């Protein structure tokens, strides 16, 4: 059973993300040697002028994509949580895409099978984190994410309290 401190995935800080898509471009060129966001494992969403966030695989504890695959083409590593696609079994049916709540798994426009973020396992470190100009991306565990949020919330509470005139 993977321990909570070992299952790492990439997450973005919404306060820092500026929607620049550098992550999309470095991902597609690292993985496919071409510049094309349609082949990137991460996609940025800009809701309005103020809200941007990149979305990629969260390495769910109980991945719906794996459960949904009718051909068992998707497996999840016990150790890392990374989802692997068996290219001989995958037929591009897209059930996993429907199952994923975030749109993190996608159909590759050329290969006709699905693809998903694998933390750049062959490179040893995720390229998007390295290249993000705002340092908005980080490799986190769910526990660390919760810790960060907790600490930020408490700090904010006390800073605001300190600023409130007596």
């Amino acid at each position, binding site marked *: 059973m993977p321990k909570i401190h070992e299952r790492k995935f990439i997450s973005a800080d919404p306060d820092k993300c500026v*929607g620049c898509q550098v992550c999309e471009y470095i991902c597609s*060129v690292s993985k496919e040697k071409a*510049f094309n966001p*349609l082949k990137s494992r991460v996609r940025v969403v800009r809701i309005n*002028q*103020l809200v941007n966030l990149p979305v990629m695989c969260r390495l769910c504890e109980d991945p719906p994509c794996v459960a949904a695959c009718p051909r068992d083409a998707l497996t999840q590593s016990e150790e890392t949580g990374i989802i692997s696609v068996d290219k001989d079994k995958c037929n591009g049916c897209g059930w996993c895409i429907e199952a994923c709540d975030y749109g993190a798994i996608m159909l590759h426009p050329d290969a006709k099978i699905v693809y998903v973020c694998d933390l750049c396992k062959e490179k040893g470190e995720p390229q998007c984190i390295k290249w993000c100009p705002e340092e908005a991306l980080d490799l986190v565990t769910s526990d660390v994410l919760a810790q960060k949020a907790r600490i930020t919330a408490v700090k904010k509470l006390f800073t605001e309290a300190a600023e409130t005139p007596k």
Partner: protein
Amino acid sequence: MFAYAGKILRVDLTTGKVSTEGLSEELAKNYIGGIGLGIRLLMDNSKPGVDAFDPLNPIIFVTGPLSGTMGPTAGNGYAVVSKSPATGGVGEAKAHGFFGPDLKRAGYDAVIITGKAEKLSYLWIDDDRVRVMSAERMRGKSPHETDKAIREELGDYYIRVSAIGESGEKLCRFAAIINDEFRAIGRTGMGAVMGSKNLKAVAVRGTHDVNVANLGGFRDFIKMIHEHMKGPATAKYRTLGTPENVLVLNSLSALATRNFTNATFEGAEKVSGEYLNAHYIKKIVGCATCGMRCDHIAVVPEGPYQGSTSRLEFECLWSMGPLCGIDRLDAIIEGMRIANEYGMDGISIGVVVAFAMDAYEHGIITKEQTDGIDLRFGNADALIAVIHKIGKREGWLGNVLAEGVSKAAEIIGNGAEKYACHIKGLELPGYDLRTLKTAALGFSVSFRGACHLRNGAYSPDVKGKVNRFKIEKGRGKMIADEGNMYNIIDSLIVCKFSRGTYYDGWKDLANYYTLATGISMTPEEMTKDGERIENLARLFNIREGKGTRKYDNVPYKIKNYPVPDEGPAKGACISDEEFQIGLDDYYAVRGWTSDGVPAIEKLKELGLGDFAYIVEKAKRVGA
């Protein structure tokens, strides 16, 4: 081809005919892309004397060789080139955001659009499937609303749209084309040209890869640029942003106030970059591939314009602020927001309102003509009300001002042209030319009209590298050199804010080009390209009867209204004598005649000998 798509798309909106042709390596190497390629295609696909609103006037959407790659800022650019309804000469503008890369991925280096659609339409470019779709239900909608409506209709969130608003539909001569909510093909009225073709928007979706010739080298190069983008060259854009200019120019008595009456503004602190960032800026966002992000997004927290949200840069802050004597940022932000909703150039709109205010204060425009609006300098409510009128072309005032200051002054008569601050029909940007004289010369000779982006001639003045209160010999070379560089910046299409990150200047840019395209390019060849583009644009203007010495001028107030403000700039204005010396100096450096016409030898040197007929005709006519 690498980086380039290698293909040009032609669309005739009258017949609905769509065709493609190849992009030759020769054309690519000699004109690069962006405005360079656009101006060449404009020259080759137009006939002399055709009005900007005529269906025969082509409007050309162009990408650069670096569009669609990961080049920081270079990856996202596109340009639009056509004959300008404001100047009658070359109209061009560039925009960033997210539209450009999709056009390249769809497989096109340029899209030449001619004719006129029968009904309001949008062009839908879906890789190699190109269709003209009905845009009737988007009539009157803002560019952003149009963007959303098109994406919803076509069912894809990632489709990119470049669209006009109501003012473009109604042929406002300074109407803009806007993509990604607040990125603008802003100046020279390209939006009006689209409106004249019944073209509401261009929507694009591209799925092809973009590949560079030398991937390893390219990656190393852009890694270097990313690092430079964290350094001093971009600090301004990452912190206060361009609004930093407000107090800088004010301290130099170069902040044109009340339509170039004063050169300092008593309300400068209240509209400064410092004040804006402290009280209004909620977030700074970026464009595709950018390593520095500069879009300062302002939100009004309270008051009559509460909630108004807009990106705000110096030029628009100045034009709707100090230039109109307005010291309220909430109104300026709202002004910018609605200017974007109508789809109008943020510089021209402010200058047009300031012109009207000046004319009103001098009794040339009456309160009856303003429909009761008290159009005095400093009246923020009046600014907002008049922007609405212009956007809608409503009433006598809205209709006249939508023509831009040059034509509005003609229509109004009665000495109004004294208050019209433009060069060649393009409204002046935010630099007081009476106290920044290199800028005065540089703006006057620019092929676009009064433009700070063609040669950045304000820079030696503001940085204190020259005596800014006098035009002297030697300025011509500064302007020409920077002009060549800026032409290449706008042809590769890299963001001008990134210009300081290419520490080795021409060497870096030539290398960038070669790494991406595989086409060998030396710094000398690239400099020549910049010179060629300048000369070709000049030739177009001459061909259209707008390109000779008499059009390289400065507005009446710059020559005749000395700066009244106490301080080192008191009494400053441009004398005709020094101005003519400046023109002679510039023309000599350019290899042009004393009438500002490229000499035949220069044309031959640049491979433009085929256009000798234009300069010969100009000599005969004495244009």
